[in-house]
């Protein structure tokens, strides 16, 4: 039989998708920072005093003068939405910082230490986890009375175990890595091992969860405010603004749509950021990068 005829060398091409993870990450990060800046500088950039009432101008539809209209007290909605951003976003941030910090510490301790204390604390976290989130928050907020701080405390109470579990799981996963053994052989003490060798290596997934949680927490705070268990009037807070404006959906929709869109946009932004952070930290993408580096060498 003949040797297969040598045809001309065939060339195939395919469009190569560029890895846009980092670009996306920077875009979303910029947007989030922008959002945080707007919230931080709210008192400086609001066009009107968000608390100044003018009953003569109540419930005006959006106009050049009041871009998002006015609420029933004649307060400028745009100013209130911006101001509300400060309250809402920073309470969510504070809340997430609290539960992440506390939960991670507990998780680090439990995962590293193990033993009886570990199982005791994990049982306690089981108890907290057993309460369906919103239920417990409603109950605690109901008990403590309304108020933004109490709402934050209520949500913090039930949300920390999630981070404790996450951190603990991560610790257990890397506790037996050779580099931890190596660090111990280097004579490093437990505290040094936990904070220098374990924490930096588990912080990635925790940060991702924390970022994604900012959005969730904003929604839960809004839910509590909606029930009248969150921020108290006249404080501009998106959830309570929506709750206040809900009866005006048909008559003056801007009163509820403005804070509604604000919540929607910020939650989406934080979620998008969280997702991209996850992609950035994803071991798979990292491995691919490393492989690429190697092949370049």
């Amino acid at each position, binding site marked *: 039989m003949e040797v297969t005829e040598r045809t001309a060398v065939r060339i195939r091409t395919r469009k190569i998708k560029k890895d846009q993870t980092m670009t996306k990450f920077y875009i979303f990060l910029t947007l989030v920072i922008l959002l945080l800046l707007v919230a931080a500088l709210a008192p400086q950039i609001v066009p009107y005093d968000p608390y100044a009432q003018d009953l003569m101008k109540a419930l005006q539809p959006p106009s050049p003068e009041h871009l998002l209209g006015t609420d029933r007290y004649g307060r400028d909605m745009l100013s209130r939405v911006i101001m509300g951003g400060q309250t809402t976003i920073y309470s969510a941030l504070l809340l997430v910082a609290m539960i992440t910090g506390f939960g991670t510490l507990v998780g680090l301790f439990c995962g590293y230490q193990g033993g009886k204390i570990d199982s005791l604390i994990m049982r306690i976290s089981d108890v907290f986890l057993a309460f369906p989130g919103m239920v417990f928050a409603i109950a605690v907020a109901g008990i403590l009375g309304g108020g933004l701080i109490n709402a934050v405390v209520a949500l913090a109470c039930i949300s920390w175990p999630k981070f404790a579990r996450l951190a603990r799981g991560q610790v257990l996963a890397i506790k037996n890595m*050779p*580099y931890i053994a190596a*660090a111990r052989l280097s004579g490093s003490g437990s505290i040094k091992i936990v904070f220098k060798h374990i924490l930096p290596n588990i912080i990635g997934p925790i940060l991702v969860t924390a970022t994604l949680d900012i959005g969730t927490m904003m929604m839960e705070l809004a839910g509590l405010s909606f029930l009248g268990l969150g921020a108290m009037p006249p404080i501009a807070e998106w959830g309570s603004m929506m709750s206040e404006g809900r009866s005006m959906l048909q008559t003056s929709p801007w009163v509820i749509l403005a804070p509604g869109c604000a919540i929607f946009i910020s939650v989406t932004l934080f979620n998008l950021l969280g997702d991209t952070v996850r992609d950035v930290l994803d071991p798979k993408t990292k491995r691919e990068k490393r492989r690429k580096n190697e092949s370049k060498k």
Partner: protein
Amino acid sequence: MNRILAVSNLKKTYTKGKSTICAVDEISFHVDKGECLALVGESGSGKSTVAKMITGLESLDGGDIILDGKTLKNPGRKERKRVYQLVQMVFQMPVDSFNPRIRLGESVMEGLINQGMGRRAAKNKAIEYLEICGLGLEFASRYPSEVSGGECQRASIARAIARQPQLLICDEATSALDVTVQTQIVKLLMELQKNQGMSQLMICHDLALVQQCCDRVLVMHQGRVIETGTPDEVIANPREAYTKKLIDSIL
């Protein structure tokens, strides 16, 4: 005293559910100063557990470890520090044995700083030992993910010997590496043994490799030592069926 390490009736058991597994079953051996001893066996033979017990990473369930003349039994924090002055270890997975977020140089320095050395001195010493292990200055500032497996293993050796231990334990230090790199590392280890006068405990599954570089060999099977002798003796005249099978399997 000529023995850096003496182990007698060492025992380690694990409980899994209701059954108890004896990972290390009353084994005894010793390492003389300047000697290179090999522990050979297949996975599950308990050889790595022995290494972990000697370095205090695992507790003992029985037996004694006499290190440089002193007995240690489940050492406390202080005692452990003394152990780490005497014994250091090189791990199987080179990249995993470095904290991915810390530069190689920093990792080598860590042990020195823990020993009480100043940062500057530690840095110089780290660079010195990295060079001994064939890594240039630039490697000190690289992350583990930025270097190859062989380079990482060199750094790992540098980290271990920088503390000038009397005994170096190599737990499958070469088995994850490519063959050409493997020979380089083995060569480095043999040089170090000669130049630094270090004793070595080599944990390995490859009899051929052991034959190249070790003075004595212990064959382990199911937690027991079944055969000892010089590599040549053992390979030439295996007494146990298992040892024979092991030798025959080498292609």
